[in-house]
């Protein structure tokens, strides 16, 4: 029940709590919104409804175990989270990862990015009131998820990457199925344009909405498509390549618009880039081990290690402080959504409620990643 003073503030603002249970927040995000009619005057995000103290928990988990917790942070790009952790441990222990494992990792990460962007596209349509895109987005996503299940044994929280490589070898059918689904998706992605991108109502809804200037995006520490939509070059795969991204041909997508439309275009173009990366690798998976020989108990040397990767939503940083033991002394995850969310009040100021939904869907928040 709301108390009387909650209704209208002294300045005559109408205060609405959007969330923690709300169809548009994609999870348990709580936004306190001060409205003037339909116009947003001020937003205050309240987070922590799904805080599971992953950082504290990881302090008592070994370097093999803590990776599994990270699948639950950004569950839509679980592979990439695991990859970040594995890379940090490998960097600290100077483990040489076999070439085959690297290629498998990149393939999986890009497939994961595709599924994440597909879901994002469906949800963007859904948030803006077009329900059908959601189902169209799930066609290939389902196939890729099944393909993940073949190899990793799980559809969403795969836990496939381990320090030194990957957990198991690829399923024999993997290459054939990936080629099939990519060939299918290359045809079907045009439907994405037909259904949403070329729709006048959709363009009206996203063009010029939720403007984030380049300066603000840098200042807020935004990353991923959110920052690239504002014209910042921040693709970790290009700037600080890992796992052999330096040998691949792909473009960093940068749009100068800074509005929802720019962020939308960045993500759509990234799907094409991901497909091109998969095309380059799928026929060239080298033979060899899928995992380097590592000790049963991993011990990191004393020191601080930072590794960043590009998830579907931006830059994920894993910061490990080691005392030389079998568990980390302190772990910090620099999550992309956390920083992107902190820019939301700036973006949404002066917009309508409908725009807020559009903004939230184009920065593609995953709340468990914000709360950790």
């Amino acid at each position, binding site marked *: 029940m709301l108390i009387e003073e909650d209704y209208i503030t002294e300045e005559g603002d109408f205060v609405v709590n959007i969330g923690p249970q709300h169809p548009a927040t994609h999870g348990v995000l709580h936004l306190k919104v001060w409205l003037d009619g339909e116009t947003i005057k001020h937003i205050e995000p309240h987070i922590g409804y799904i805080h599971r*103290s992953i950082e504290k928990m990881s302090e*008592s988990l070994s370097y093999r175990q803590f990776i599994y917790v990270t699948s639950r942070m950004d569950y839509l790009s679980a592979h990439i989270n695991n990859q970040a952790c594995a890379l940090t441990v490998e960097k600290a222990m100077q483990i040489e990862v076999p070439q085959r494992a690297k290629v498998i990792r990149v393939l999986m990460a890009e497939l994961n990015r595709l599924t994440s962007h597909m879901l994002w596209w469906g949800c963007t349509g859904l948030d803006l009131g077009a329900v059908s895109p959601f189902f169209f987005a799930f066609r290939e996503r389902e196939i890729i998820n099944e393909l993940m299940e073949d190899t990793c044994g799980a559809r969403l929280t795969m836990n496939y990457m381990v320090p030194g490589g990957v957990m198991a070898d690829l399923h024999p059918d993997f290459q054939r199925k990936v080629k099939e689904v990519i060939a299918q998706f290359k045809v079907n992605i045009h439907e994405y344009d037909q259904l949403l991108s070329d729709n006048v109502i959709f363009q009206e809804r996203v063009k010029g909405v939720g403007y984030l200037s380049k300066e603000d995006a840098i200042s807020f*520490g935004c*990353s991923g498509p959110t920052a690239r939509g504002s014209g910042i070059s921040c693709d970790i795969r290009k*700037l600080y390549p890992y796992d052999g991204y330096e040998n691949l041909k792909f473009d960093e997508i940068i749009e100068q618009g800074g509005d929802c439309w720019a962020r939308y275009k960045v993500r759509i173009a990234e799907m094409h880039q991901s497909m091109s990366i998969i095309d380059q690798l799928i026929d060239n998976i080298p033979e060899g081990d899928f995992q380097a020989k590592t000790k049963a108990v991993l011990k990191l040397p004393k020191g*601080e290690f930072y590794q*960043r990767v590009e998830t579907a939503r931006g830059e994920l940083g894993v910061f490990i402080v080691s005392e030389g033991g079998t568990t980390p002394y*302190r772990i910090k995850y620099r999550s992309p959504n956390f*920083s992107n969310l902190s820019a939301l009040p700036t973006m949404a100021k002066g917009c309508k409620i409908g725009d807020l939904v559009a903004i939230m869907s184009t920065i593609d928040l995953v709340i468990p990643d914000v709360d950790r």
Partner: protein
Amino acid sequence: MSREELKQRLSEICPSVTFDETGEFLMAFFTPDVFLTQMKELRCATDLNFDYLFCMTAIDWKDNFTAVYHLSSTPFRHALVVKVKLTDKENPVLDSVAGIWKGANFLEREVYDLMGIRFNGHPDLRRLILEDDWIGHPLRKDYADENMIEL
């Protein structure tokens, strides 16, 4: 800017700075008293231009709290880790950089919430993740409550 140049330049800004080069990034130890002006210098100096605060956290060591700022510069692509040791374990206080990097607003609230470092001059220093009436700061090493399970 190369690492040596960066060290040179930092020594000009802060004569008392000490370096640690064991990690991937250059680590500079600042002192809390003139911390804010030095951070402003890092952000505003045209040749440094550390405009991107991409990670901020704090570590609870036995005898101090260390605030860690990962900075990089989008035009120059050089990176720097700034560390500040806060020896007061009971009531750690540090100047807020929320006025320099907007993203620090949330990051500092998170650090305050989980590590208990107070930030002077922060516009809105409240708990971010935990409930407002939570007692204690969970990421501290001496934190304990009745629901914790020993693994």
